[in-house]
Each structure stands twice: as structure tokens, then as C-alpha cells.
């Protein structure tokens, strides 16, 4: 008897709202729907604009858009390609992720499981605040502080790991304005973001799981390995993806730190290379209409890459069951 009672109560309010259709309701619903549609239109417009102008630029490119190193759309005939930019973007982001993700997980665990409780709260709070430091400030700090201070680290890497070729510095004297430095700076920038999200995910791990593990005599590390990390894995992955999205699109911090040149080098300590957004902000001013279209084409590629990364993150999050009070 009690089981049959609830079903009619839930649809009833909706039915009331639908049958007595008041003008206020229609206007409000229309506004809400309208803004949703507006958002769709804006997105479609962005996609359309970028695509149309990008296609027109690429069709006039006398180099191969994907494999050309140079970015010289002002030449006659125009030659430009994204090979160096794509490489630089990927390499700097990979370096950033390789550094930031383990450390971010470490900090998240530190705050949730290791730090004295009185310390954990304030630390989490400070890291939250650091997530809001504008990228231009990171850029300023990177160019005026980090670059001079990383020289020693670069030389050290060259001394001990130069044999790997990756860490070989062709010219020991050159400034540390390399993709490696960019990667480190990006790592510092995305560290707070990844930490924040990971920490929240780890906080959601049911206490029962951890207590059960403890009760079985697990050490703290075993608790983390057996009950915390498996539960939080997808959340941490999506946090990392968010960080990656940020790193891929970062503009100013890269523009101030990198010595850009159209050279593709596997030696990440050499001051060469470029990234999509750095190239846009550096070349934009001098670009004529056609040059702008060419830059837009590269922007579109960046957009697509970011889209893929964010989409992947979103899918991972979606796989976890989302709690919703409203439309469950």
C-alpha cells in the first residue's frame, strides 16, 4: 500500500504546471530556452567563422599545413604550417603533465591523509587561491625569475642526462627559454587546478572503505592504494585532463618565456620551438587579413585538440554516476 502511494505524487506537480499554463510560465520557460539556444547559436557561429576563414587560408597555403615548419603567410606565395607549433604544444604540455600530475596527487593526499588536520584546511585554502593567480603573472615571474634560475638546472640536466639526447643542451650558454622551461612553468600553473579537483574527489571516498581497510590492518599507504586511489581514479584523470586543457591553451605565460623560432628539436632544453597560442599572440599584430586567417586556422586546430581533451575528461566524469537532486 505504501509502495503504491509515491508514484502518483511525483508526476502530479508537473501535470499541474503543464495543464494550467500561465503566461508567466511560458515567458520564463521561453527565456531559459532562448538563452540555451543563444548559446548554441554563438557556438555554431564561432565554429562556422573559424572554419570558413581557416579553410580559405589553408587552401591558399603553398606549404603543407600539417608538416611545414615555417610560419610565413606574408611571403609570396604564402608558406605556413603547424608542425613546430603542434610539436611544441604537445611537448610542453606533456612535460607539464609529467611533473604536475604526480605532485598534485601527492599534495591532494597530503592535505587529505597526511597533514595534521589543523594544517590541511589552510593549505587547501591557499592552493585554492593560487589557482586564481592570473597567467600573465606566472608569465612575468617565469620570464624574470624562473628563466634565470633554471639555467643551473638545465646545465645539471645536460651534464648528467645529456646522453639521452633529449636533455642534451646544444649550447650550454643559451638562456633557459626552452620548451622544458615552458613545461615547468605550465606545471606550476596547472598544479593548483589538478590539486583542487583531485582533493575534492579524494574527499568523497566513503569513509567506510578506508575504515574497513584500516580495520583489516592495512598501513596508511595500503589504505590509499587499495581504497582511495581506485575510487578516485576517474576523478583524478579528469582533473588532469582539465589541467591539460589549460596547459594546451595557455598563451601569455608561454609567450613571455619561450624563445620562439621555427625549429623542431627533440632536445627540449634548446631555446627553440613554439606553441599554437604563443604563435597567435606573437604573429597576430603583424598579420594582414590573410595572415589572420592563417592564424585562425592554427587556432582552430588548437580548438579541436582542446575539444578532444575536454571531451575525454567529460566522458570519464560522466561514467561516474552523477548525483542530482533535481533530474535524477
Amino acid at each position, binding site marked *: 500500500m505504501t509502495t503504491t502511494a509515491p508514484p502518483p505524487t511525483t508526476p502530479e*506537480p508537473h501535470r*499541474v504546471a503543464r495543464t494550467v499554463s*500561465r503566461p*508567466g*510560465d511560458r515567458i520564463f*520557460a521561453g527565456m531559459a*530556452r532562448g*538563452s*540555451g*539556444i543563444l*548559446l*548554441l547559436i554563438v*557556438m555554431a*557561429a*564561432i565554429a562556422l567563422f*573559424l572554419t570558413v576563414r581557416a579553410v580559405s587560408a589553408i587552401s591558399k597555403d603553398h606549404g603543407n599545413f600539417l608538416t611545414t615548419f615555417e610560419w610565413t603567410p606574408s611571403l609570396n606565395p604564402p608558406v605556413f604550417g603547424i608542425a613546430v607549433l603542434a610539436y611544441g604544444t604537445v611537448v610542453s604540455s606533456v612535460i607539464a603533465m609529467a611533473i604536475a600530475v*604526480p605532485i598534485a*596527487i*601527492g*599534495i591532494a593526499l*597530503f592535505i587529505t591523509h*597526511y597533514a595534521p588536520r589543523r594544517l590541511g584546511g589552510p593549505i587547501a*585554502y591557499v592552493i585554492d*587561491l593560487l589557482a*586564481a*593567480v*592570473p*597567467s*600573465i*603573472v*606566472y*608569465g*612575468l*615571474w617565469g620570464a*624574470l*625569475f624562473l628563466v634565470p634560475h633554471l639555467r643551473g*638546472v638545465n646545465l*645539471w640536466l645536460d651534464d648528467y642526462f645529456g646522453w639521452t639526447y633529449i636533455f642534451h643542451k646544444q649550447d650550454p650558454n643559451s638562456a633557459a627559454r626552452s620548451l622544458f622551461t615552458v613545461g615547468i612553468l605550465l606545471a*606550476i600553473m596547472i*598544479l593548483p587546478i589538478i590539486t583542487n579537483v583531485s582533493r575534492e574527489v579524494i574527499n568523497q571516498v566513503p569513509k567506510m572503505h578506508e575504515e574497513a581497510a584500516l580495520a*583489516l*590492518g592495512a*598501513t*596508511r*599507504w*595500503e589504505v590509499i592504494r587499495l581504497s582511495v586511489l581506485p575510487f578516485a581514479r576517474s576523478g583524478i584523470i579528469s582533473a588532469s585532463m582539465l589541467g591539460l586543457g589549460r596547459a594546451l*591553451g595557455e*598563451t*601569455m605565460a608561454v609567450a*613571455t618565456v619561450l624563445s620562439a623560432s621555427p625549429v623542431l628539436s627533440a632536445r627540449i632544453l634548446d631555446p627553440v620551438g613554439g606553441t599554437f597560442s604563443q604563435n*597567435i*599572440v606573437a604573429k597576430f599584430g603583424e598579420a594582414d587579413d590573410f595572415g*589572420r586567417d592563417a592564424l585562425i586556422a592554427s*587556432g582552430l586546430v588548437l580548438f579541436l585538440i582542446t*575539444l578532444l581533451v*575536454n*571531451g575525454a575528461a*567529460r566522458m570519464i566524469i560522466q561514467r561516474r554516476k552523477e548525483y542530482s*537532486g*533535481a533530474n535524477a
Partner: protein
Amino acid sequence: MDAKQASGRPASPRLASRHLPRWSPPAIAAGAIVAAVAIGAGAGLSSHIQWGLIALALFVAGSYAITARVEGRRQARNRVATSLVWSSFILAVIPLYSLVETTISKGAGIVDGTFLSHSMNNVLTIQPGGGVYHAIIGTLEQVGIATVIAAPLGMLTAIYLVEYGKGRLAKWVTFFVDVMTGIPSIVAGLFILSVWFVAFNKAPASGFAGSLALALLMMPVVVRSTEEMLKLVPNELREASLALGVPKWRTTVKVVLPTAVGGITTGIMLAIARIAGESAPIALLVFGSAAINTNPFKDPQSSLPYYIFEQYNNGNQPSYDRAWGAALVLIAFVMILNLIARLISRWKAPKAGR
């Protein structure tokens, strides 16, 4: 504590397993540091970073070896994990501390009443002097306009998604909100620039153009955070209101929104803090100005992030000083917004969420 837990294991051959005294980690650390200094000085390694790294490696290896001998492999692994977590924390703290410390120490010297209340008008960039007033005005106005555009649209979209959204349209909107979240700021700037060219046949050079790009960046963030907050509002509240015969729109406005207002405001404030630091689209769109321009719709403006970029590009000491000063002002501005947002969220957190 772990040792106590471990001692409770019924499988353990002894009731109390051996464990290291409490003072052992600091002792091992001290030993590692002494050894590292000895090795470093002995081998003539000049870089103190290397000394630190050697000390760290020695500490991890030493504590593993000693613990493994005394307490067993599992405890040893636990110790290593602990030291790795601690060291990752310390590793992260160093650059973040350095960033804040550098900005404050270099910026504090220049930020004063004059700096905050004067523009760069008639100041030679190779000389000290001038200030950020025009940039503060620019940032406030551009961010303000962006908020006025993006906040209502974003909130309405979120309301649509949570309260009305069913079917294909809602799916598309959700998808594109995700897509928008990922737009690199420079691409948003490029988009507004292209539209501006098509619409007015000239390059944009006003604060308003910048705020349009900022609004584009802000909108998806607002939608996301508002959506999350609305989802936290329990259905019982909606149903109770509807059952009383209140129309759905009044239920949304008078019951759902007020319940979630704390979270929504926090989300908007965080979004504002986020766009206030954007420099890439501004660099493409607002041209920059040394003088005060309070009209965001006509003539170029400056903005704090752009000002920093501009001063950095001037490349001389007085300009670097001004850049640090402006960076300090910008960080303070963003942090204050963050603090306000957090206070509001603590004060108005939806209590019936569970």
C-alpha cells in the same frame, strides 16, 4: 598509529610487532642531510639544489632500508609513500611560495597612493612614475560588462538545463557548454575580432570588444557552476511549492534560486576572478591606452593584465617595477574576489543538500 593498527592483526605472529621509535624519521632526515652535505662538499658539487636532492634520495632510501629491517617491507613501503607525499608537497610549495614572495617583494615597493590613482599619461616608460589607475578602470569596466552579459545568460541557460531541459536541445546545449569551457582564450579573442571586422569593417579598439570576448569565456563557467548548484536543491522544495499551486516560474525564482543563491554567487565570483586575469584576448581587442578612458564603448582602454604585458615588453627596470606593482594589484583584486566568493559560499551554503 599505523604500528598500533598493524599490531591488531590477528595473523601477526606476535601481538606487538617491532616498530621504530617516534624520533626515527627526523633522525634519519638529519643523518641524510649530514651525509649529503659531506658528499656534496667532498665531491665539490657547487649547486645546493644537488645537495638537497642527494639528501632527499638518501632519506627515502635510508628510511626504507631501516624500516624494512625493523618493521617489515609493508611498513617500509608505507614510510616511502609518506616521504614521497611530503616531498611532493614541499616541491610544490617552493615555486608557489617563490611566485607570491617575488611579486610581493618587488611589487610592494611601488604600489602606493600615487601608483593606484595615476595613469601612464605623459610618463616616459624609461623613467619611473605613473600608475595603474587607467588599467584598473579598464579591468573593472570590461569585467563588469562581461558579467552583465554572461551572468544572466549563463544562469538562464543553467535553469533551462536543470528545470526544463529534456530532449535533444538540452543534450546539445550541455555538449556545447562543455565545448565552450575548453575554448582557449586567444581563440575567443580571434572570434570577436573576426566578427568585429565583418560587422564594422575595422579593427576593434574599445573596452567593449574585450568584454565580449571575456563574456564568451565566462558564460560556460557560469552555466556549469549554476547547474551544479541547482541540482543540489532538493526536489522536495520544488514539489512542495508546486503543490501549493505556485506557478513553476515563481517556484524557480522564489524557491529554487534563493536556495542555491550562495553557490551561484560563488560560481559567478570565481568566474569573474578567472576572466579578470585574462590578457590574451585583451591584447587583440582593446588597443591599449596610457590615459584614462572611462568610456568602454569608445576609444581604447587598458586593463591590468594587458598593462603588465605592456610594461614587460618595454623591457627596462622602471617598467619591470611597474609590471610587478600591477601584478600585485591584480593578484590582490583576484584574491579579494575569491575571498568574497568563499565567504558567501560558507555563509549561504545550501543546507538541505543532503
